[in-house]
């Protein structure tokens, strides 16, 4: 009896001692450590989050694309060329020859038309960017048609800047799907939604081999890709929830790219020679105030709240890789965006106290503060402390509060936004657009609506910027919107512009984070 126990311990010790040299990530495979927790589907039309957009943009090709270094220039991809009609109400695109899906079927204009129609008909989060141009379930079949094998015509129901339409076609959700293969797996008219959740039918450089939610994603390269076989034969995305664990693996060389890492781990890896792509994003960290709350409805209170956020040390320490100070609703570098350091509101507890007293609250205010999710908790705690000095008492309630934010059931909330449209209109439609302020409208997609602040003039200007086709006029419109937004003491206080850092192991090159979240693996190399 005793012997068997000793034998078992010895066996364990032997195995324990020598599981072989830790297999560093192989030379021709790229290993990405990330969070795969909230990925309900790999269907391009059903997704808009960052990580899954990256996956989808490597399984599927778009008609056109924008590269990380120049977000304004629209470049050809599956569409070789395109022309805009004189009345600017339709775009005719000519598809390239020789591009094939992973099933071997050739990529035709019919696949492109069907894909766009499908996105609109499904009407899920993937359609937000393109639905803005007026496409609906009823009109999309007539408006988007394949003239022949290689020609696709897109007619616009309303006057819209064609650049905006093309930008939305570059988004991950508009990845072109192999119509024939998809329809083979359609289940009672669901446009193959269920099948595409865990399978891929695209023409991208990689095809899906294994997908286990919250665990692992395996994609293998296609040697016959029309844009040339990618260097990395296999790409693995591994779910590593613990940042410390991920950092150790990057240090040990088992993982090449680290995403969603804690700032201290990024700093440590940077010090050890890893490259850090700051990954500027098209979104902001903001503090939202629900103007249905009687106190927050008063502009003077909102003005005071602009001075309770100590954003300098926040950007330098707690959130140093999560964003840089920014106070405009137009992303930096975009047409109409201010230049230089933000000069608007500074952290000034005394001023805030004075303003609150003027607004009728001599001994300050007490409100609940919701972080929109766990990632925002540390920002909420920092805000809680800095606001205390200004006489504002915040009770922080941790948890998942995005649903409350959408349903206007909150007082003060800190959150972050993101969009994939590389055009100011993308953020303006979120922050300065509120066509119908009634509760029944349920326009949860617009942040301004969530704060219940009616701004008809701003809304009108934003609609105008959508249809304005002349670039110079659009830039002037954007600046005007930005100034008017600041002038009305908005219910959304912009604190930082968002950055999503990627840590890239030494010896890995060609991995560049795309602000529109269509980060492509095609050019990644290892030496």
């Amino acid at each position, binding site marked *: 009896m005793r012997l068997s126990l000793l034998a078992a311990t010895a066996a364990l010790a032997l*195995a324990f001692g020598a599981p072989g040299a830790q297999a560093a990530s192989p030379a021709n495979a790229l290993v990405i450590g990330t969070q795969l927790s909230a990925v309900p589907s790999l269907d391009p039309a059903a997704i808009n989050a960052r990580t899954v957009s990256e996956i989808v943009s490597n399984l599927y090709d778009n008609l056109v694309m924008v590269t990380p270094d120049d977000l304004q220039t629209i470049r050809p991809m599956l569409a070789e060329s395109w022309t805009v009609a004189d009345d600017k109400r339709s775009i005719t695109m000519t598809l390239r020859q020789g591009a094939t899906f992973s099933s071997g079927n050739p990529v035709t204009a019919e696949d492109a038309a069907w894909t766009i129609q499908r996105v609109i008909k499904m009407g899920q989060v993937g359609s937000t960017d393109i639905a803005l141009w007026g496409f609906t379930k009823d009109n999309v079949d007539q408006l988007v048609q394949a003239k022949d094998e290689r020609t696709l015509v897109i007619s616009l129901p309303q006057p819209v800047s064609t650049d905006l339409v093309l930008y939305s076609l570059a988004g991950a959700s508009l990845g072109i799907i192999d119509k024939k293969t998809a329809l083979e797996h359609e289940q009672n008219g669901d446009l193959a939604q269920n099948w595409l959740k865990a399978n891929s039918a695209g023409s991208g450089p990689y095809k899906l081999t294994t997908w286990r*939610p919250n665990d692992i994603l395996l994609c293998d390269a296609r040697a016959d890709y029309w844009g040339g076989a990618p260097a990395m034969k296999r790409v693995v995305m*591994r779910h590593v929830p613990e940042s410390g664990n991920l950092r150790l693996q990057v240090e040990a060389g088992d993982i090449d790219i680290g995403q969603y890492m804690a700032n201290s781990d990024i700093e440590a890896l940077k010090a050890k020679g890893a490259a850090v792509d700051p990954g500027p994003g098209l979104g902001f960290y903001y503090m939202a105030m629900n103007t249905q709350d009687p106190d927050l409805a008063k502009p003077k209170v909102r003005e005071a709240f602009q001075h309770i956020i100590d954003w300098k040390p926040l950007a330098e320490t707690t959130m140093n890789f999560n964003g840089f100070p920014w106070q405009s609703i137009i992303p930096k570098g975009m047409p109409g965006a201010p230049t230089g350091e933000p000069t608007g509101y500074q952290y000034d507890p005394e001023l805030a106290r004075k303003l609150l007293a003027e607004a009728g609250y001599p001994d300050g205010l007490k409100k609940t503060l919701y972080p929109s999710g766990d990632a925002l908790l540390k920002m909420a705690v920092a805000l809680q402390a800095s606001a205390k000095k200004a006489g504002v008492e915040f009770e922080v309630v941790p948890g998942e509060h995005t649903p409350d934010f959408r349903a206007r059931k909150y007082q003060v909330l800190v959150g972050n936004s993101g969009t994939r449209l590389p055009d100011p209109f993308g953020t303006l439609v979120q922050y300065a657009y509120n066509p119908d302020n009634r509760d029944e409208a349920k326009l949860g997609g617009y942040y301004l609506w969530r704060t219940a602040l009616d701004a008809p003039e701003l809304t009108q200007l934003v609609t105008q910027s959508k249809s304005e086709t002349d670039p110079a006029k659009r830039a002037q419109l954007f600046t005007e919107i930005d100034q008017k937004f600041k002038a009305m003491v908005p219910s959304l206080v912009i604190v930082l512009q968002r950055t999503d850092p990627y840590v890239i192991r030494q010896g890995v090159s060609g991995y560049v984070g795309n602000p529109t979240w269509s980060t492509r693996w095609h050019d990644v190399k290892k030496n």
Partner: protein
Amino acid sequence: MTTVDTFNRPARFLRMRRLSGRTLSVVVTLVGLMLLTFSMGRLLPADPVLAVTGSEVDKATYDRVYQELGLDQPVWQQFLSYVGRVATGDMGRSLTTGQPVSADLLSVFPATIELALVAILCGTLVGVPLGVAAAVNRGRPIDHVARVIGLAGHSVPIFWLGLIALILFYAKLQWVAASGRIDILNEGMVPPITGLLLLDTALQGEWDVFRDALGHIILPGAILGYYSVAYISRMTRSFMLEQLGQEYIVSARAKGVSRRRMIWAHAFKNIRVQLLTVLALTFGGLLDGAVLIETVFGWPGLGQYLTRGLKMNDMNVVMGAVLLIGITFLVINIISDRLYRILDPRTR
């Protein structure tokens, strides 16, 4: 001649009644489990309709789905339909993974079972000898040391221990892997039979994949095992003390039996069955520790699946996972009772 008891009821009838008595209590407990998870699901602040339709939905579809889910029916009717659905294995669809919850549970549960089994093995290999040593040397320093080592296992926060072990055994010594159940090279190489990687690879003779899987499971398993050492060693100690005081020990020694044989071949042989029930209870307790360990080691198991469900207010996941854990607990207790009867000659 059928054996009858004092009220001349045939033994077969008695056994049947006792069996039915026990299955009745099992069924009642099962329904109780579902009542608990159902009410827990209802209390969760998430709106079940949005879980199905996604957050942007117009009034019409909202009402249609509301009706479809039967939320308009009285609560007890909803509970009955819930029990009906669960009986057929339909636990609804998960918000976070998009898959039906029952499919998710099938893929995550073997990972936790395997982790718990390795943990129990480690916990026993350390806990039992520790308990025996403490009992045999009662009162002497080794007794106190054994108790502190055991209790420390239960007192030290498991996630803290996990992180420290990672730094030591993974970062510095490179002995083990850091996360996941297997290296990406071996991913999908071995067709699953039981879903337990160690077993599947061993059965199919894939020894280096086995060693790789072992390298991934040994650290989280050992730490989770250490978490259960306190309970196992304490129970072993009290069982052993009870046996060492028995007369048959004196008669064994009078026969000239060596000390070691007296401890293991005689005293320990008597407590093996009792230890079985202790291990069964420990298995349940391990599911607690698994919840934390799986987060630290990125182990794609039931624990992580449940905590993510709770964090994302994914109601179907919470109800499904908690119910599965409850049922596992129940099954383990039943099996340990049955084994207790079979293995102990006195009650056969």
